[in-house]
C-alpha cells in the first residue's frame, strides 16, 4: 500500500484539494517540465475511455515521463483469466506509477492493497473518479475565482452519475448550495441526501428544469443520461430528453454562470450553446490535463517547491 495513491476524492483533505488546485494552476502556466525524466507510468485501461486515458498520457509526456499500458483489456492476460491482483503485481515490477480504469467497482482500492506502487484511480465502474472531480473543482475555481458559497445546479442523471456524487462530496468544505434536477428514476441517491443533511449543506430537489433554477445558479453541471446504466431500455427512452439545455434557456442567467459537463455529451446540451461565452465544457476537458499533472506529481511525491528548484537549475 502506497499512501500517495488516490482512489477516492474523500481520501484527501480540504488542504490537499487546495494544494492540488494551486499546482494545477502552476501547470497551466508552465505545462512542460522534465520532472518525470526516467519515470515510467503504466496506464491500465480495462475499460476503454479515450478522454481520460489521453489526458493522463499527455500529462505524463508533458512532464517528460514514459508511458506503457493498454487501452483494452481484451488484448491482455486478463482475457485469459488472470486475476487483477496478478496483473497489478506484474506491472508493479516495471513502473513507478499505475493509472488504472476498471469496469468493476472497488478495483482500484483493491489494487492499492496488493502493491507498493502508487495507484491513481481513473474510474472504477460507477464508483469513484477522483481526477474528474479535481478537474471539475479546478474549472469551478477558475471560472468563479473561488469555491466558497456557490450555487451549483446538477442536472440529468444524478443516480448513476459518479461525477456528481464525487463533486458533491468534495464541495462539502466550501459551503455550497445545491439544486438537484432529475426525474424520479434518476434522483440523487438517499445516501448523498443524507450526507448533505449531516454536513449542514443546503439543497433543493426539482423534477423540472425551470428558468428560476437556471437563473439562480453559478454553475450548471449537466450530465448525460447513460444508456449503459439502464437495465430497462424503455425507461431510458422515457427520460433521455427531459433535461436538455439550449442557448435560449441561458438568456436571463447570471453573468458568471458557466455550463460544465464531464463529456461525452449526446444531446443534453444543444450545439447552439457551444458558442455562448457561458459554455465551458471544452475548456473543462483541457483543465483535466493540468489537474492530472498535479495528481501525478502528488502520487510520485513531487512537490511544487521541488519543481521550482528544478526549473532554476
Amino acid at each position: 500500500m502506497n499512501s500517495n495513491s488516490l482512489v477516492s476524492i474523500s481520501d484527501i483533505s480540504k488542504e490537499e484539494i487546495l494544494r492540488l488546485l494551486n499546482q494545477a494552476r502552476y501547470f497551466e502556466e508552465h505545462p512542460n517540465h522534465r520532472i518525470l525524466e526516467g519515470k515510467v507510468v503504466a496506464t491500465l485501461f480495462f475499460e476503454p475511455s479515450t478522454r481520460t486515458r489521453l489526458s493522463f498520457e499527455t500529462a505524463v509526456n508533458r512532464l517528460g515521463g514514459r508511458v506503457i499500458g493498454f487501452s483494452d483489456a481484451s488484448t491482455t492476460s486478463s482475457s485469459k483469466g488472470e486475476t487483477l491482483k496478478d496483473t497489478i503485481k506484474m506491472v508493479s515490477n516495471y513502473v513507478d506509477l499505475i493509472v488504472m480504469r476498471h469496469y468493476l467497482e472497488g478495483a482500484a482500492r483493491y489494487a492499492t492493497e496488493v502493491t507498493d506502487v502508487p495507484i491513481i484511480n481513473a474510474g472504477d465502474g460507477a464508483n469513484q473518479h477522483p481526477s474528474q472531480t479535481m478537474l471539475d473543482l479546478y474549472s469551478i475555481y477558475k471560472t468563479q475565482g473561488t469555491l466558497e458559497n456557490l450555487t451549483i445546479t446538477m442536472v440529468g442523471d444524478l443516480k448513476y452519475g459518479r461525477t456528481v456524487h464525487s463533486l458533491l462530496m468534495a464541495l462539502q468544505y466550501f459551503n455550497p448550495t445545491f439544486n438537484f434536477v432529475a426525474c424520479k428514476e434518476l434522483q440523487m441517491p438517499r445516501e448523498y441526501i443524507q450526507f448533505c443533511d449531516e454536513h449542514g449543506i443546503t439543497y433543493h430537489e426539482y423534477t423540472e428544469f425551470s428558468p428560476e433554477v437556471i437563473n439562480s445558479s453559478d454553475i450548471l453541471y449537466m450530465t448525460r443520461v447513460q444508456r449503459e446504466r439502464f437495465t430497462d431500455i424503455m425507461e431510458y427512452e422515457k427520460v433521455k430528453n427531459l433535461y436538455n439545455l439550449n442557448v435560449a434557456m441561458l438568456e436571463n442567467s447570471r453573468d458568471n454562470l458557466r455550463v460544465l459537463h464531464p463529456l461525452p455529451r449526446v444531446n443534453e446540451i444543444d450545439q447552439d450553446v457551444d458558442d455562448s461565452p457561458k459554455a465551458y465544457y471544452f475548456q473543462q476537458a483541457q483543465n483535466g490535463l493540468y489537474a492530472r499533472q498535479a495528481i501525478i506529481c502528488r502520487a510520485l511525491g513531487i512537490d511544487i517547491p521541488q519543481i521550482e528548484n528544478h526549473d532554476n537549475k
Partner: protein
Amino acid sequence: MTTNKKELAVAALRNGTVIDRIPSSALFKAVEILGIEKLDKHVTIGNNLDSKKLGTKGIIKVADTFFPDDVINRIALIAPTAKINIIHDFEVVEKSSVTLPQTIVGIVKCDNPKCITNNEPMKTKFELVDPENRVIRCHYCGHCVSAENAHIK
C-alpha cells in the same frame, strides 16, 4: 421417564461456552460462522426452543472451547441478541453480549454484482458506518447494507 428426557435436553457442561438466545433463523449460520463443524469437542446444538424474549431460540454448547472476542462478535451480524456464558466447573463464571465489530472480514458477501469482491478470489471487508442502525459498508465498492439484510457467505 420425564426427568430423564429433561436431563438429555439440557446436558450440563463442565467447562466451555454456551451461546444462548440465538434467533432460530440464525442458528445454523452462527454454527457456520464460528466454524463449529470443524471442532472435535463435544458440541450440543438446540433449535426452536421456547424463549420468552424471542418466541423461539437456538442454543449452542461447546465443551472445552473459549472463543476470542473478535471471533464470537462475528455472530453479532446475524444474532445481535445472543448471550455468551462461560462455564467453569459447572458454574457460569462470565456472561456477556455480542457487539458488532468495526470491521468485518470475509463473512459478508457484497450485494453489488459489479463489486470487485464478487469477481476476484479475495476476502470481502465491511466497515460499520452507522452503529445505531447497524449499517455496514463495503470497503471496496461502497455499497451499504443493514446487518439484518447482509448476505452471509
